[in-house]
């Protein structure tokens, strides 16, 4: 009899491994913190208008013509 794999147990182990790899990949980026460009961007924006002015997309809806 060759079929000795415990399907349930093995599956749980695979799932835990997948979860671990997923978080490792994700947390690797999270640990890099906030790049300067984003800290500066948020600091220098006075408010909604300043942000809207920087969105270079014709689909933007900033309420002005």
């Amino acid at each position, binding site marked *: *009899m060759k079929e*000795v*794999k*415990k399907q349930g*147990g*093995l*599956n749980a*182990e*695979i*799932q835990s*491994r*997948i*979860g671990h*790899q*997923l*978080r*490792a*990949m*994700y*947390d*690797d*980026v*999270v*640990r*890099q*913190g*906030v*790049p300067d*460009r*984003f*800290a500066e*961007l*948020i*600091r220098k*924006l*006075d*408010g*909604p*208008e*300043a*942000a*809207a002015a*920087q*969105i270079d*997309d014709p689909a*933007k809806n*900033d309420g002005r013509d």
Partner: protein
Amino acid sequence: MPLTDSLRDDILASVPSLRAFAISLSGNGDRADDLVQETLLRAIANIDSFQPGSNLPAWLFTILRNLFRSDYRKRRREVEDAEGNYAKTLKTQPAQNAHLEFEEFRVALDKLPQDQREALILVGASGFSYEDAAAICGCAVGTIKSRVNRARSKLSALLYVDGAEDFGPDETVRAVIGGNGG
């Protein structure tokens, strides 16, 4: 609500996880940072529509996810060196074996349908509840649950199609095999 200093701080505190989400979705570090920048601009431009006391990360993730989806449709035909660019975003170079395994995982993740990939990342990595993930994706909680389940089983089929062999001399497996002598 108005853009107070504390709201700025809260938005800034979400940047690391927004980047991780963007990279997980797009597989491309440069493009991910463009997505994050666009998300921040849009969030602040529309800050009046943010409900004080509601879930700020979920709100920001929703903006990023919608941007990614419209961006994705536009760029679908572009050929990108996704893996190469992704590797550049990593500060710590994993050891050889770990790196190989990591690449394999990355490639498998990219093979998932977009709906399943984002659901799995939101629940399995970002740590959102099924309810929050459903709100972010604009679908029912049950839909998120089934997407996450399908993503998990597809990943295990892609990565561990041969089952036990990939685990090496694993205790459980060895015990099972060892106990088979009868």
